[in-house]
C-alpha cells in the first residue's frame, strides 16, 4: 500500500465493523456497531464520510438495495470489503500486533 494510504484509526474501526456485520453492513448498522463496541458517540456523517473515502480508496465496494417502508421508502447502501481492503486490514492488524509486542497492559500511571 503506498504511503498515505495506510488505515487511520477510525477507518480501521469502520473496516472491522463492516467485516463483523458481513451482509448487514450499511451506514446505520456500522454506526451502531462502533458505538456499542467502543462506547463512542459516532455520528452518521462521520461514518458516511469514512465509508465514502474507503470506497474511493478501493478498500470497500458498495451495493444498493431496494427501498423499504421502515426506511421511509429509501434505498439502502451496503458495503463489503474488497481484496485490497482485506489486505489493508491484515496489514493494520499486523502493524498493531507488532507494536504491542513486549508491552504490558494496562499501563501503569494512567488515570484508569
Amino acid at each position, binding site marked *: 500500500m503506498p504511503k498515505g494510504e495506510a488505515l487511520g484509526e477510525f477507518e480501521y474501526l469502520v473496516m472491522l465493523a463492516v467485516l463483523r456485520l458481513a451482509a448487514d453492513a450499511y*451506514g446505520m448498522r456500522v454506526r451502531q456497531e462502533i458505538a456499542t463496541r467502543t462506547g463512542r458517540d459516532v455520528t452518521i*456523517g462521520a461514518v458516511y464520510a469514512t465509508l465514502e473515502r474507503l470506497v474511493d480508496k478501493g478498500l470497500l465496494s458498495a451495493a444498493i438495495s431496494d427501498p423499504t417502508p421502515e426506511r421511509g421508502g429509501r434505498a439502502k447502501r451496503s458495503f463489503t470489503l474488497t481484496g485490497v481492503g482485506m489486505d489493508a486490514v491484515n496489514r493494520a492488524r499486523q502493524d498493531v500486533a507488532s507494536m504491542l509486542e513486549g508491552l504490558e497492559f494496562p499501563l501503569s500511571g494512567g488515570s484508569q
Partner: protein
Amino acid sequence: MKPPAVARLLLIAMAGEHQAEFVAGDLHEEFLLLCAARGRQAGSRWYRSQVLRSVAMLLALRFRSGEALHLMAAAILAVAMPLLLLDRLWRFVYSNIPLKDGLQRAPEFRIVNLVCVCACAAVCGSLAHTVHRAVGVAVACAVAATFALWLGSSITPILYAGAVILAAPVSSLITFAWRKSR
C-alpha cells in the same frame, strides 16, 4: 411516524444528492427504533443532534464529490455575475451624470437588479431534475446573491439585500415546482 421536519430538510439541503437518500434512510430507520424504545421525544432529539453534528462532514463530502462545486459555479455564473455586471453598469451610468457619482442607487435600479436575479435564479431552478437538486440550487443561489451584494460597490440597504437573498432561492424553487407540476 416522521422525523422532525426542519432537521430532515436541513439534511436534504446539506447532504450530497448521492448521499442524502442513504443517510436519511439510515437515520429514519434508527429514529423509528429509538421512538419505539424510548419515546418520540427522545427519538426526535437524537435525530436533530445527529443531523446537526453531521452537517459539516456531509457538506465536505458533497464538496469532495464535486456536486457542491458545480452548484456553486452555476449559481455564481447565473446569479452573482449578472448582479455584479449590473452593479458595474449602474456605476458607469452614475459616473456619467454630474454630482451623482458615488451616491446611493435609485430604487428603480434596485428593482431591475431584483427582477434580473429572480429571472436568473428561476432559470437555474428550472434546470433541476430532483427535489434534492432544487433545494441545493436554491441554497447556492442565496449564497451567490449574498456574495454579489458583498462585492458590490454601492451602499446596500438591508431591506434590498434581504429581498435579493430571499428572492433568489424562492424564485428558483417556484420555477422548479411549476415545472414539476406540468
